[in-house]
């Protein structure tokens, strides 16, 4: 299939996805914290049964894993990405999508940016809210509002670099490990015996395992999607991602100080509301302070890149 044909199919599907899912639904916290607190109690109460042993085994496995492999991260990330896409509408400007992908690929010239199983994909979403989010495996989403807050290409690159840094530092994967543990406790609370007998009556042991895994990971996927869009990562994770983003910018040739410059623009503007990035991240002021000397640094060619940014994104 040619690239032009690919694009035609792609944006047709984008429209279908948005139509079927609605746009930017409001999200409620899952309340799994309570489940997590009861995990030990439940495990103790049902100790010795095959079901509790199985689920505690799953929880321990999920928690003790050093890392998921890149292909595992990719498939987790795809499902989180599908959840995100069900809540936003993909922007229909193909030239804008291509430009943002090229900026992303330019940022990825930095060798500090981790490679992913299937490469990175950058998707512009509709909406004036300032929002940018990434999933394990390298699916990066940002709203038109987040792009319009950038004064030039280097500042746009800084938003992408921050999201690439989250992928590189595996912040999403760390969240899925915790969410998987919560889900195993939730399954235990619901009565694992029911799962076993239902599945046993329906098919083979392999199908049963698949059903169990799907329940386990499916709940975790929805949990971390909500966390990404509503709660965000910890302050420390954000500070780490900002610092790595500044290094990535410098290595790729963009201005190291572009992230602080972008954050400064967010701080002094109320347009776009207080949701999205402003709700899920520490304050711009705190982030700039945390960057320290990494908040500074220019790059040759900034005026040229500003001009092509303005051609793509008229003010």
């Amino acid at each position, binding site marked *: 299939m040619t690239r032009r044909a690919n694009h035609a199919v792609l944006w047709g599907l984008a429209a*279908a*996805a948005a139509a079927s899912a609605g746009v930017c639904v409001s999200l409620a916290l899952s309340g799994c914290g309570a489940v997590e607190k009861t995990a030990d109690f439940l495990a103790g109460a049902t100790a010795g049964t095959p079901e509790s042993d*199985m689920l505690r085994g799953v929880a321990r496995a999920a928690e003790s894993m050093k890392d998921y492999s*890149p*292909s595992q991260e990719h498939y987790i990330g795809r*499902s989180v*990405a599908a959840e995100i896409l069900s809540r936003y509408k993909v922007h229909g400007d193909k030239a804008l999508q291509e430009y943002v992908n090229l900026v992303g690929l*330019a940022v990825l010239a930095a*060798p500090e940016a981790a490679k992913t199983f299937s490469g990175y994909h950058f998707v512009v979403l509709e909406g004036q809210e300032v929002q940018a989010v990434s999933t394990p495996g390298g699916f990066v989403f940002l709203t038109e509002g987040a792009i319009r807050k950038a004064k030039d290409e280097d500042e746009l690159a800084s938003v992408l670099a921050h999201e690439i840094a989250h992928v590189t530092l595996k912040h999403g994967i760390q969240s899925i490990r915790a969410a998987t543990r919560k889900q195993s406790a939730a399954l235990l609370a619901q009565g694992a015996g029911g799962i076993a007998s239902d599945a046993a009556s329906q098919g083979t042991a*392999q199908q049963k395992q698949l059903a169990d895994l799907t329940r386990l990971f499916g709940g975790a996927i929805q949990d971390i999607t909500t966390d990404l869009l509503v709660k965000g990562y910890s302050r420390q994770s954000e500070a780490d991602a900002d610092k790595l983003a500044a290094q990535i910018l410098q290595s790729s040739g963009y201005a190291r100080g572009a992230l602080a410059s972008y954050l400064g623009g967010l701080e002094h503007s109320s347009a776009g509301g207080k949701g999205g990035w402003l709700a899920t991240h520490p304050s711009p002021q705190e982030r700039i302070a945390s960057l320290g000397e990494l908040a500074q640094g220019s790059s040759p060619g900034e005026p040229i890149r500003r001009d092509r940014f303005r051609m793509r994104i008229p003010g």
Partner: protein
Amino acid sequence: MKRRLQWKDVGPGLGLAAALLGFSGAVAWAADLLTVTEREAGIRSEKKTYSPKVATVKEGDQVTLLEKDEPWLKVEFQGVQGWINQSSVTDDPNVVLSGTEAARGARATMQSAAQRGFTPEVEREYRSTRPNLDASFRFLDELQKVKYPEEQVMAFLRKGLLIEPAGGGTR
């Protein structure tokens, strides 16, 4: 009474030593084997992300580590030497690759299933339970088919003065 050391005296010992050396050599050799974890990756002529490819490797291919200059690794694949980003490979011989699920069959325990993580099979099952995500998954399928050729990326870098206009200094 002393007698001269004869081959029959030392032969078995040397054989054992040789075997041990061979074994330790094999261990060292195995430790230098890395497995590619990207679906497809380039081995590069220089320690730069977009420098020319001297070879293309696929997930599961094994390359031999020759030299480290983190995050770059000098490797050899099918007689060709070049550089690859360390995040494209692993030294874990038990790394979970995509497409290996079916071969494992139903014998795996639940715990090992959890360690296999979110595989394509789990995704298919998940999709069947979340039909409202079908259009989103199909969008992702098409999104992954869109490729930006490295020549296009290089031209973009040059025009933006992110690399030298002459083409040198790629990162």
